[in-house]
């Protein structure tokens, strides 16, 4: 960044002459040092996974969760500054609750992404604040069932005026929000330190074809976190995963942690896949030596 030290990076509310907000770009740097987060959207649900770097041996294993539940059907994970992430999750919970209070119905994944995108964007506008040092991934499953209004009694007329129009709705949603407040919907999303490797692996899954099912996605997500972690093997980490299925699936439309057995199975497969890759690479190296 050649413009560093020109003074245009000192506050949020000042553009540089070439149209950049340096504070936001520095926030992105904070994200790029954080543990890798991954989200996969497949036909019957969404998986969230995060590489939780263990910063001290004195921390209790499995404590200090990084994936947060926002509403029954919604979860968020983030890379970057953990306290910023906590505040992001708190705000998302408030938004989801306020939506229920106003509309008596659960907030959709896209609406939550929109609200949170707007919230983060506001932190790029003022002198008095700094942008969020996180990139967040929001995963959710909007119920595909005829969902009643909260507290509703009865179903009203089945035909005629006020009668219901049948139609399909709902489905999985995955959004990634950056410090600038920009958000897109994704088939597969990755952020944090290992995002390059993770994105390359996600692309190989051809998620837009909609062939991957939820259980496979859990295993892929675990593998991708392990692959993305390869570059700094010396750091210890824990794998944390959550998922949301459709109403017929294993979580019945709720955002919950991946059950212990499945998590361990996925980790075992991931480690196996990693070590096979390593062996291949070592084999190649030996071949090279032979040729020499």
């Amino acid at each position, binding site marked *: 960044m050649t413009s560093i030290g020109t003074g245009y990076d000192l506050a949020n509310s000042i553009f540089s002459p070439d149209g950049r907000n340096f504070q936001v770009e520095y926030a992105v740097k904070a994200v790029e040092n954080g543990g890798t987060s991954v989200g996969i959207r497949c036909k019957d649900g969404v998986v969230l996974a995060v590489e939780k770097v263990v910063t001290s041996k004195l921390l209790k294993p499995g404590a200090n969760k990084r994936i*947060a*539940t926002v509403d029954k059907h919604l979860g968020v994970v983030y890379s970057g500054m953990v306290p910023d992430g906590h505040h992001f999750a708190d705000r998302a919970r408030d938004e989801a*609750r306020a939506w229920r209070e106003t509309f008596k119905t659960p907030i959709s994944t896209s609406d939550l992404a929109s609200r949170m995108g707007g919230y983060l964007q506001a932190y790029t506008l003022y002198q008095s604040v700094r942008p969020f040092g996180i990139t967040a991934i929001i995963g959710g499953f909007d119920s595909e069932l005829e969902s009643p209004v909260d*507290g*509703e009694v*009865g179903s009203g007329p089945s035909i005629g005026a006020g009668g219901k129009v049948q139609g399909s709705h709902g489905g999985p949603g995955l959004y990634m929000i950056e410090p600038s407040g920009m958000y897109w919907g994704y088939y597969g999303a990755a952020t944090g330190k290992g995002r390059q490797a993770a994105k390359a692996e996600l692309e190989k899954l051809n998620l837009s074809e909609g062939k991957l099912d939820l259980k496979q996605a859990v295993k892929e997500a675990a593998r991708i976190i392990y692959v993305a972690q390869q570059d700094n093997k010396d750091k210890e980490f824990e794998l944390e995963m959550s998922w949301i299925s459709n109403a017929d699936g294993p979580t019945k439309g709720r955002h919950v942690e991946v059950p212990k057995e499945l998590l361990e199975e996925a980790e075992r497969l991931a480690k196996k896949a990693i070590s096979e890759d390593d062996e291949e690479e070592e084999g190649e190296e030996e071949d090279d030596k032979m040729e020499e």
Partner: protein
Amino acid sequence: MDHRPQAWGRPRDDVYGAYDASYMQTNQPNQHTQSPIVTGTSVLGMKFKDGVVIAADNLASYGSLARFTDVKRLRTFAESSVVGFGGDVSDMQYLDRHLTELAIDEAYTSTTTTPNAQPTLNARNLHKYLSKLLYHRRSKFDPLWNSLLVAGLDEAGAPFLAAADLLGTTFTSPSLATGFGSMLAQPIMRGLVPDEASVAQVTREQAINCVRECMKVLFYRDARSLDSYSLAVVTKDGVELSENEKLENQSWAFADRIKGYGTQTV
């Protein structure tokens, strides 16, 4: 003109005459919370060896008018407990929203991966919370006009069934019924489960059949009841809720032997 602060913003007495203060207050206390409007009738519940059966019909009455005939009065919370609501339906809706919010808050702190951890919103805690809330509201002279049954499992995984009403009164028993059911259905259910010790001998089928039979008796004799009803079974595997049950094998043969009311000449 009157410039004293207490006259600010008021119509001027010299133009409009003195304000009639009787519009501002009545000498009576508020009465709009003192009676229910749209109501549901009895709720029945019975423990069996592995869980609890609970049932309520799908009617909301407006006085004696059968006003809404597809009202679901059994509500599931935290995937593990069922609350059956009798009494005012709008207060039921309020409680439903309130408890849904509570269940979402509880889900923020997940417990699935920590060994020995238990969901905090089990049926016993839900019942305790509801009874405190009901008592608080009656103490404000603004009661929630309901009588409730809470069915589920307690922290030890044993079947749990307890009642709470608009006064905050609580009690528990192997079988419970609210409203008219406490007179008509309770004796029948006690025949099957007279005490806690007998619960261990009662199978799921026995309990369901007994509750279905009681729902039929209630439909025969309770003029605020309906023949379509909801029935839920709570076990450690979760909640099975069926909201479109119909009373079967009704027999009204006894009806023409009843004399002494209506238009009939004895």
